[in-house]
């Protein structure tokens, strides 16, 4: 990354954007580490971005204070979402966050103070490559400590088996809310950094179209270990640029690589355990390897169902 940024200002901008995305995806990872499914991290980051941008531009706050404020606002959004989606299954929770994100887009379109449809301009360019990667390093250190902390372990337990975690004395409500809020706060930091780099915040930045890539990076990189999402974000941010030799077809290749990796390695590039591997209502429907040849023919015929499933 450092080498890339030294080569040209173009790679500098790619690296900065990639770093910011990595911070937000890391937030997504932490939010979802207790089994929630958030499709609204672009909206949470966007809330942080608007807050930070308004504070530095209109009130002249220092950059650090704006980051803190954006972080708090996104965290408040996170608490709200976490409490609403607490008891839902992952699908319904995901869709609720989707609807939340789209609602935020509409709200942003209708507040004139933050520029409404014509976006929020005039933000001071405070973000630099160094600042982004220092923040990313701090966030990764935080995520690393989080993974082995009591809260991180409790979150993992909640994700793998909520009922068992409850029975083991873990306060599932508290853990899920706390973890989601932490992730949302991190996304808010990413949002403020992004606002002070791109220098404009648009309502459409909060939409599902921008949350989907975050989700893709998270699953692509590996959803069970904190290096995975950072790796996924950096890889998928650089991939279209590295594919620039085929300018027209690069996003086509991007889609192809993405699909191939997910189909071949559903657990993501980094990590061993696939997402949701412990429980799935349709686990019997997975295509399985062929039933091995019976070493003692005639002893036990495989049932019709086995044949059907293995065919």
């Amino acid at each position: 990354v450092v080498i890339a940024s030294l080569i040209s200002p173009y790679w500098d901008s790619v690296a900065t954007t990639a770093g910011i995305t990595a911070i937000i995806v890391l937030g997504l990872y932490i939010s979802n580490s207790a089994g929630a499914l958030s499709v609204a991290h672009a909206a949470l980051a966007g809330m942080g971005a608007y807050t930070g941008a308004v504070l530095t531009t209109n009130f002249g706050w220092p950059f650090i204070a704006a980051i803190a404020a954006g972080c708090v606002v996104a965290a408040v959004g996170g608490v709200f979402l976490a409490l609403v989606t607490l008891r839902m299954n992952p699908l319904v929770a995901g869709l609720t966050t989707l609807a939340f994100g789209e609602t935020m887009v509409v709200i942003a379109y209708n507040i004139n103070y933050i520029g409404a449809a014509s976006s929020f301009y005039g933000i001071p360019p405070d973000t630099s490559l160094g600042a982004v990667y220092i923040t990313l390093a701090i966030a990764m250190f935080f995520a690393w400590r989080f993974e082995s902390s009591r809260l991180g372990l409790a979150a993992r337990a909640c994700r793998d088996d909520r009922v068992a975690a409850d029975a083991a004395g873990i306060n599932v409500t508290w853990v899920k809310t706390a973890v989601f809020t932490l992730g949302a706060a991190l996304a808010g930091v990413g949002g403020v950094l992004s606002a002070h780099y791109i220098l404009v915040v648009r309502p459409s930045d909060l939409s599902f179209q921008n949350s989907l890539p975050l989700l893709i990076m998270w699953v692509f990189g590996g959803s069970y270990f904190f290096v995975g999402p950072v790796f996924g974000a950096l890889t998928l941010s650089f991939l279209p640029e590295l594919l620039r030799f085929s300018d027209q077809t690069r996003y086509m290749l991007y889609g192809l690589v993405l699909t191939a990796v997910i189909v071949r390695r559903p657990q993501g590039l980094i990590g061993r355990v696939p997402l949701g591997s412990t429980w799935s209502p349709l686990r019997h429907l997975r295509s399985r390897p062929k039933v091995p040849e019976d070493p003692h023919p005639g002893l036990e015929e495989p049932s019709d169902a086995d044949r059907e499933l293995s065919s």
Partner: protein
Amino acid sequence: MVLFLQQVVNGLSTGSTYALVALGFGLVFSVMRVLNMAQPDLAMVGAFVAYLIAAKLLPLSLTTTTSMALGIGVFVLVLLGGMLGAGVGGVILERTVIRPTRGTYILIPFIATAGVGIFLENGANVLFGSNPVSIPEVIPYDVISIGGVTFTVMQLISFVLAVAMMVALRFYVKRTRWGLATRAVAEFPDVAASCGVNVNRVSVLTVGIAAAMAGAAGVTIALLQTSADPFMGLALGLKSFVCMLVAGNRHIEAILAVAFALGVLEALVGGYVSSQLRDAVAFALLLAILLFRPSGLFGSYAT
């Protein structure tokens, strides 16, 4: 009153395109618990097949005919072509992406098919360019007026097509042998498999049929707007997705009804309140339904 009815008619026409994509979404999701994010892009494939047939393959005299009967004949040809193109795409999608990933965590097939969607969008972008291609008006532009409410023949056809597709799909699911197998897999996949249902074949059929319906939607939209562009699936996808969720995926009729209702609601909000709030209707509806009836208005299969 006339203005109101006019908005309703326009809304029904938009709703019919949502319906065709939403029916496919609902079918695939209810049978395999897979959110097929490539569905709206298969509609785009159908639209471009329609473009190839109508603008490149057929002579100009056929596609700009003034005879209504001939126009409808050409439309049927284009429609079948679009459905076939998208249907084949759907079968390939099932074999390569959905089959290896179904039954895993819900995000895995979601993201894998979203990748296919990105591939299709940008593939079409490479082949046809990002500017919309224009498609001749296959159906002669005749305006029908009933008591001051006007609509084109194409709008009428899109409405009839959506209803006809729903009826056909309903017949398939409720009255045929493979439909029975499909319902069995949707209800209890394990039991269906142990009773000898060929789950893989049901899966191919389901995705293929859903893709063909998306193709029909694509052709309809292409001919309604007389244009198609590689990224037309994006706007369509989210709306029809919402239709499927609000209706729940248990009843095919419900999806159609909700799609029409959403189209009409959007047209009314756009016409009377503000055009900015138009797109918010779908998500306000979704939020309300998810909070009070998480399995949709008319019930869904268990997830």
